[in-house]
């Protein structure tokens, strides 16, 4: 093994609830996927080919495994134990589920050979996940040979949420998914929706024809040529499960932010979203991988502090409401203000 970048050291005891012990290491801060290439923000169809990014970056591999891997998998198991409907799959999505399992297993085994391995003898597959201590032999295509449905099984071992869409009638329909870390949307509510119905609540973008263009682009998504984009919001605490189902637990937290505590309470949540055409089902899988960074962690990179201060300060009022920032946007701006001396930021998202 002559890997240039050291594999992450896992922090298995981190939590995303209760005492919120999640923190980023200095290395995790530097590789954080900043979503703002300039000091202002508006929607765009910001998709690009999901080709390997720089070594060590979150886009280096198809599915990024970082220091939070074990802790995020445990968080998913906690949510599923309480709310099994966070995983759902309609009966006609069986082949798409196997497509997803294959995609994820092959990617992880190829990209992280020290942690995962996959060997195949015809349809007899042998999967080893060392960080989680899993050693599983099964028959590809036979659901009875796995302890869970194929998509459920493999996404319990993957960071990030997953939506699987069926393509028909010139549209994409949500027909399966594993959603335990949503930014205020519900798989149970959205199952069966078309692409535009699913995105119904998003303001401004419909008028800008963002979804017409995005849908057209995705309907033509090609096998072996995945695409990615970044999206963002803000969250109080590093809480992965900001679901509508649990709104009473996290909604009120937004009233507790002050200019004094914002640096530790408020987190920028960035989603690295990937889209793959699935081979046997002709479906599309959509991965939503959330990264958190507290304002205090973010302020350790001077360029990012200046930029986020400006973006949040000048954000379109409708987006302030849609992203749920209404009650604490001013506190965020006030907390970040001392880090912004007005000097220019270089273009692009790199830390400088």
């Amino acid at each position: 093994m002559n890997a240039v970048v050291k594999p992450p050291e896992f922090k298995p005891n981190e939590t995303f609830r209760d005492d919120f012990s999640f923190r980023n290491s200095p290395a995790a801060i530097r590789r954080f996927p900043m979503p703002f290439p300039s000091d202002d923000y508006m929607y765009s169809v910001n998709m690009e080919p999901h080709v390997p990014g720089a070594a060590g970056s979150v886009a280096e591999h198809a599915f990024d495994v970082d220091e939070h891997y074990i802790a995020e998998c445990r968080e998913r198991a906690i949510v599923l134990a309480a709310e099994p409907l966070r995983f759902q799959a309609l009966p006609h999505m069986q082949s798409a589920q196997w497509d997803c399992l294959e995609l994820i297993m092959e990617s992880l085994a190829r990209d992280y050979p020290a942690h995962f391995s996959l060997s195949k003898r015809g349809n007899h597959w042998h999967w080893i996940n060392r960080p989680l201590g899993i050693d599983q032999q099964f028959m590809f295509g036979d659901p009875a040979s796995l302890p869970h449905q194929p998509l459920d099984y493999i996404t319990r071992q993957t960071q990030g949420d997953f939506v699987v869409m069926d393509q028909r009638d010139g549209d994409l329909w949500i027909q399966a998914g594993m959603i335990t870390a949503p930014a205020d949307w519900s798989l149970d509510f959205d199952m069966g929706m078309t692409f535009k119905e699913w995105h119904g609540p998003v303001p401004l973008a419909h008028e800008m024809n963002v979804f017409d263009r995005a849908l057209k682009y995705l309907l033509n998504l090609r096998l072996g040529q995945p695409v990615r984009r970044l999206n963002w919001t803000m969250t109080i605490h590093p809480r992965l499960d900001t679901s509508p189902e649990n709104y009473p637990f996290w909604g009120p937290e937004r009233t507790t932010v002050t200019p004094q505590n914002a640096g530790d309470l408020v987190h920028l949540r960035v989603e690295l979203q990937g889209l793959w055409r699935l081979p046997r089902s002709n479906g599309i899988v959509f991965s939503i991988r959330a990264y958190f960074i507290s304002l205090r962690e973010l302020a350790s990179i001077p360029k990012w502090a200046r930029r986020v201060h400006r973006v949040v300060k000048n954000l379109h009022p409708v987006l302030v409401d849609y992203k749920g920032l209404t009650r604490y946007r001013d506190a965020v701006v006030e907390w970040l203000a001392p880090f912004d001396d007005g000097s220019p930021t270089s273009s692009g998202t790199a830390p400088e």
Partner: protein
Amino acid sequence: MTTTRATTAQAKTQQAQTIAVEVKAIEQVTPLIKHFTLAAADGAALPAFSGGSHIIVVLRGATRVYRNPYSLLGSPHHLDTYEIGVRRMEESRGGSRFLHENVSVGSRLEIAHPVNLFALAKIARKQLLIAGGVGITPFLAQLEDLRGGAAPYELHYSVRSPEHAAFLPRLREREGDRVHMYYDSESHAIDFDGLLSHQPLGTHVYVCGPAGLINRVLTTAKRWGWPDSHVHSEQFSAPPVGDAFEVFLARTKVTVRVPPDQSLLESIEAAGVEVPYLCRGGVCGFCHTRVLELDGELTHNDHFLSDVEKSRGKSIMPCVSRAHCRSLVLDL
């Protein structure tokens, strides 16, 4: 402008990414159709696909390159080889003739990853497949996906005469009496009204074959009140031959001459300008190009633009469409 950049970047990877294959077997299955079996040149498994997918086959002739779409007809469960059926087209630019005459066992070709523009609806309660001639090819792969599934299905296959019934032995062996044959030579035609007037609710119908067959199915289905979402058709147009013309590409500032037997897309590619494409058969809309100036008439041969869009003359699908013109300027 991220969109433009991404699309261009994607177009580049897309056209760079081909798979080298070797021809493993060739069989003349009818007087007009040859059956080619292809395997990856490096011996690896080929990418998985779904029934109804096609591949683009890149054929490097002595003086020009052809890129023709062919449906995959082998089983999606066996990825050691891909199989295609090629009908020899006399009145064409020569891609199928090249495959028939210049390609032999051991020949090396390039193919692009499969794309499915004719996918089965997985929620259908019954699947009704109607094929004409070489239009049988996508159904051969789809049948492999349907066999053993919950939904009942049947195939209606119409050909000129028994000697033109490509792949019939394979169909009979695998599908038995789910295959219904129709021979023009015996004046035995599909009873479209009979077939489409009494199917159970939730049936999807699929048709692939000559334009006449497709139109009969589409109009009959419409008359019997089938919802559009349950009626599927695929007809790849081979780029037709036509008069020579010249086109100016405004962004790249290149003048391209389009000879009679080469498509507009092929001519633009030969001039070193890349255009994103998927099907190269006038179906998918990926190569949609804006027309900036036109002194003359466009000859639209695609199935993508609406009649209104075609008459407006503001866009063209360069994979199959041409022009009769003194000048044409495209946004490329």
